[in-house]
């Protein structure tokens, strides 16, 4: 049995000090060790995007990362969006525009979208689609997802004014 490795990770603003096996995947650390089950594992080869979390603000595939690689980093999962009483504008847009059906791909997608809109507050459809290319959805056909991203961009721009 290999030596466990200490890690210090901030997850959704909460600091965690843990000792983990090097081979523990980040997605499993989040889901099993921290019991944050909002991040989903669907393909395990980094293609579908369901496992996407934010690492120091950038979207990454948590199924393609070892937890030890995130030592010293800040992770945000879907549970970090919104508050107890209010949804984040991106969550609200997906809710209102029905940018989901079964919802399994949704958490990873929301995080990518949040990060994307921070960099592209007024995105073109082509820019949105290029970002969405990294997220597979088997239910919606993507059109409501595109609508939801546009709606989120508009509502965030409106409240930023």
């Amino acid at each position: 049995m290999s030596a466990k490795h200490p890690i210090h990770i901030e997850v959704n603003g909460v600091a965690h000090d843990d000792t983990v096996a090097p081979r523990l995947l980040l997605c499993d650390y989040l889901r099993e060790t921290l019991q944050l089950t909002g991040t989903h594992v669907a393909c395990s080869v980094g293609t579908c995007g369901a496992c996407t979390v934010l690492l120091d603000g950038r979207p990454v595939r948590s199924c393609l990362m070892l937890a030890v690689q995130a030592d010293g980093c800040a992770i945000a999962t879907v549970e970090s969006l919104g508050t107890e009483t209010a949804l984040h504008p991106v969550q609200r847009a997906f809710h209102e525009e029905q940018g989901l059906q079964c919802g399994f791909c949704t958490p990873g997608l929301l995080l990518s979208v949040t990060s994307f809109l921070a960099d592209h507050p007024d995105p073109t459809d082509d820019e949105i689609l290029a970002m969405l290319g990294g997220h597979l959805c088997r239910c919606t056909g993507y059109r409501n997802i595109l609508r939801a991203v546009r709606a989120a961009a508009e509502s965030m721009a409106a409240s930023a004014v």
Partner: protein
Amino acid sequence: MSVGRAVARDDAYDKVTGRAAYPADLIRPEMLHLAAVFARRPHARIVALDATRARDAAGVVAVLTAADVPYNRFGLDVADQQVLCDDVVRYVGDRVALVVATSPAAARRAAALVHVTYDDLPLVIDPLAAMADDAPRVHADRPNLMHHRRIVAGDVESALDRCDVVVEATFTTSWQEHAYLQPEAGTAFIDEQGRLVVVSAGQWIHDDRRQIAQVLGLPDDRVVVRNAQVGGAFGGREDLSIQPLVALAAWTLKRPVAMQWTREESILGHHKRHPFTISATWGAQRDGTIVAARSTLIADGGAYASSSSGVLNMAITTVQGPYAIPNVLTDGYVCYTNNLPSGAFRGFGAPQGHFVAESMIARLADALGLDATVLRRANLYREGNIEPTGEPLPSGVHVRDVFERCLERARAGGASTPRRLAPAVRRGTGIACGMKNVGFPFGYPEGATATVELFAVDGGPRARVRTAAAEVGQGTHMALRQIAAEALSLPLAAVELVADDTSEAPDAGSASASRLTLVAGRAVKDAAEAALREQVSWSIPCAATVTYRTPPTTALDARGHGRPNFCYGYVAQAVEVEVDCKTGVVRIVRVVSAHDVGRAINPQLVEGQIEGAIAQAVGYALTEEFRVERGRVLTPNFTTYLLPTALDVPHAIETIVVEIPDPNGPYGARGVAEMALVPFAAAVADAIHDATGAWVCDLPFTPERVFRAIAATRAPVAVP
């Protein structure tokens, strides 16, 4: 007014916050964890199974084998599958042992230590070869030919002799993987009342319960099946998969257990859409009257029967399309092979049948020198037409309505002006229409039961609806609440739905056959109305339970006659493609999809079903190629099996919802879930032909296939 409103679905809140609990999210570390030993070979006899090293491994509590299964036979239709194989493995996904351990890692490590000695058996990998007298048998006790069904109407042979034009072609379709994003997972435990509780994701919790109880030798009421949040189904959760494994372990060890499959295990371990090879010969008169259609269909049923009977029936009844053809001879065969079992997948044989029917229309039009629209108008079904199965179509034949509406919108042009095309890229348009049954067909008992309880809370009226309709993402829970609210004249917020527990809700039938809105919806509406009739006042709680039974259907006799369905939904699609003639890459640029939905209970949900089905249809037509060679899967993950991304589905999708009330549906609602998958591949093939002059007959239309088809026509591609 609830019905007809695009109300935001109420489960969206939990889904956007990550609070929604899918089966794997309910796994607790203190449960015992399971890992299956898969056969990973397509046909072999188990000579010996040695689990000694596995049992001795760290953390292992037990290794279960076939001997531990009280009644080791199950299946949706034919009980030809085993929970754990005892003698022969028939496809790579068969399970032979189940390891139970204190952690998932320990279970998987130990699974690798189970040593199985196999004697490989001769492979049966082609359904046509499987029918030969001397072919090796997949199941020793029965022939490889599962079913041969035929439909005979009129006299096809002499009719073909009389025809002015006869067209022949052969088509092939491939497997399709459901690829619901949530891989199989489940937990099971014994509750305080001594009942076995299984929590997973299924399309029909009552039938899952029936099969699980049978396997364990328990009465139905000792077993409770619950659905957690279901991450997509599309027909892929119609058969049992992980459920009998967690049930067996929990019941045997009397401890809570958990299991989750990897994507690769999911792909290996559950059924696929049936591949078909279909030869068709159609004949017509010069004036465009289609006189005769002869078809031979051969389907690969894989290792176990699953829904093969129903899919074959669906394919043979749709292979001549929605046309009034007086002379029909159709022979359909489905065979056992050592490939993955084939079973239910959204469309259920109709996509395969329509790929042929609508492609034959295009070829016939071409041979006649007629516009395909003229040909369709001359032959499309009308109210009262007789099906080849001998009886009049169920009332509400709206194929002409959707066809004309689709055509009109397609000709009106897309919203944006077409961009300038690169050299060697050709644009083409295609059209196809179709029909798909709503509800269980061919005499299968069809109905749903709902209970509606009326009561008051703090003086305010409330209702609780109980019906076990599975929410698999399609929004059925929302739609059923809307129907109840409408019938009870209550606001939506006052109506609660209890659905996901066999001990708390009555049987609604499966989430399949586009049936829940119509069948469970009628049960809910009728129960609500019955409850209101029972009611004295809101302050006195009352309840009513109604089982809605649909109009009867029958099995088909030896000549294929009977009443296959009580309801059809109709669809027409126009597709615009761009084909890069030098690479074979096809882009779908625009889709117009017209649907006869009866009544849109929730227009947003209806549109979601159409758009979602179109994306799966894009995959079926272009990107999704499920490859199996000598019984082994070459595409076991999402880097090899390619689902369409947002960049692969057309920007311009126009849905046309035609609302002509269905005679049986609640508020006239019909069904829409599968419809958009039915004609799509044929519409794309038609568009590719329009663009390039090449006929494509083999699904999916990969760049290589299209490239070769274009080369074969030697159609010159002029470079300006």
